[in-house]
């Protein structure tokens, strides 16, 4: 599903953010990506959702070497990836409904079938009454739910989420995690970056621990509990 081989990333002439990273994520797997701020989590996610090209190394997604794909080929691949951005990145001039419908419209889905999917999903995340609302009129938690709905609406094969529960209360957070679990059961591969180690423990999925641009804990090396993964803390990684 996802294979990184000796991947290095640096921005311009700056220092290496990720160094010689190699990992393999099986189809349908669920991984939590943890690590302190500045460890390179967001950069790793960018590589995963093809928002950045690696400086060196090889990335394969869905069995295809990304570097060998045409621009259109990469666009096709991106349509199989759902992304929940940390800063939501909702489009302010579009309503909640249109924000969520956008990936389907880009893929050419008909308005009739699109409407049902979007309304169902927004209802599921508790925003059925806000279909026509402008994103800026919503609370942070509501905006995050819109962002999650937008990432899920295209039924992606790979879901990449950067702190998806950062701005929502526990009840909504648990509901979202339940939704992620359900997607995982349906075969979606999920990579979830978070500082919330309690949630990681609750989920009980393999953990990718990133430190100084390198994987410190590989899939398959996951440990019982979170002790070794969170030196000095059992709650959150220090920001």
């Amino acid at each position, binding site marked *: 599903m996802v294979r990184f081989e000796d991947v290095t990333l640096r921005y311009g002439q700056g220092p290496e953010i990720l160094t010689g990273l190699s990992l393999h994520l099986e189809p349908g797997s669920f991984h939590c990506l943890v690590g302190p701020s500045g460890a390179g989590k967001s950069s790793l996610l960018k590589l995963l*959702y*093809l*928002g*950045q*090209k690696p400086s060196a190394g090889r990335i394969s997604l869905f069995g295809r070497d990304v570097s060998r794909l045409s*621009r*259109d080929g*990469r*666009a*096709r*691949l*991106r*349509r*199989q*990836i759902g*992304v929940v951005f940390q800063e939501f*990145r909702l*489009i302010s*001039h*579009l309503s909640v409904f*249109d924000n969520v419908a*956008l*990936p389907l*419209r*880009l*893929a*050419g*889905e008909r308005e009739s079938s699109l409407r049902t999917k979007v309304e169902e999903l927004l209802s599921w995340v508790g925003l059925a009454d806000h279909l026509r609302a402008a994103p800026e009129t919503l609370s942070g938690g509501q905006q995050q739910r819109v962002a999650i709905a937008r990432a899920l609406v295209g039924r992606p094969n790979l879901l990449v989420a950067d702190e998806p529960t950062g701005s929502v209360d526990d009840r909504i957070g648990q509901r979202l995690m339940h939704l992620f679990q359900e997607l995982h059961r349906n075969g979606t591969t999920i990579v979830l970056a978070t500082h919330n180690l309690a949630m990681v423990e609750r989920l009980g999925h393999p953990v990718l621990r990133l430190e100084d641009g390198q994987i410190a804990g590989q899939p398959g090396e996951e440990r019982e509990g979170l002790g070794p993964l969170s030196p000095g803390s059992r709650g959150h990684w220090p920001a």
Partner: protein
Amino acid sequence: MSDTELTQLSRRDLPLAGDASARFLPWLIAFMVFLAALALVGADALRQTAARWNGGLSGQITVQLPPLVREDAPTAASRAEQAAALLRDLPAVRSVETLERAEAAALLEPWLGAAANDAALPLPTLITVRHSGDPAPLAAEMRQRLQNEFPDAEVDDHQAWIGGLLNLTRGLEILALFLLLLVGAAAVVTVVFVTRTGLAVHRPVIELLHLMGARDVQIAGRFQTHALWLGLKGGLLGLAVAALCYGALQWAVSPTTLALLPAFEIGPVLLVLLALLPLLAAGIAWLTARVTVLRTLGRMP
């Protein structure tokens, strides 16, 4: 879902119409199309004038007999006939025709008005010689023939001044076409600037669309359609203003002044070219926006 089924982005997805830079584009395009229309009409007017001068005077030599002191009409006619007789039997001469006094006066009327018809006004006698040979040696031969009887006669083969005028009109024609090219280049630069501004203003949304899997042509499609309409709107406006100016000029200029100017009419070819200007402007805007957006998106991963 195959790529051919991918839809274009809607106005709602990327609202370019509200951009400040885009609001000025139709006016700039209108100004350019106006200039282009003027350049086209100017170039065609010069071409027509040059063709008329060339066609009207080639194959002709004009002989001018200065009037004698207190010369009456019968004497003038007799002298004209005498000179014509000397020229008629020259080889290469096809016909010799003396211009009536009334016709000569009509030529001066735009400058002198009614005074041109005054019988007291001394007018030279003009003889038009049509020929089928090389004008320079024939003119020399005609001067020789007239030398004894009419030493003051002037023989003009028109080559000296018509050659200069033709060169001037051709130069101006090239200048007008160069102006057209400049206007086209200015339109391209303007659209590039407006498109880049639009890309910068909407960069966060464009990046998001890109990450969601929008193809470059989908994003470019939105910009190029927008530029096409702005270009067409501006083009039609510019052409309308040019037509109004042309109509106003025709209406404002008096017939006497018009008589001084070379006759000009907008023919079907020029009409088609003028009608194509707004489409050309729209096409340039469309293509420029497309290339600009695709090049910018090409720098995204």
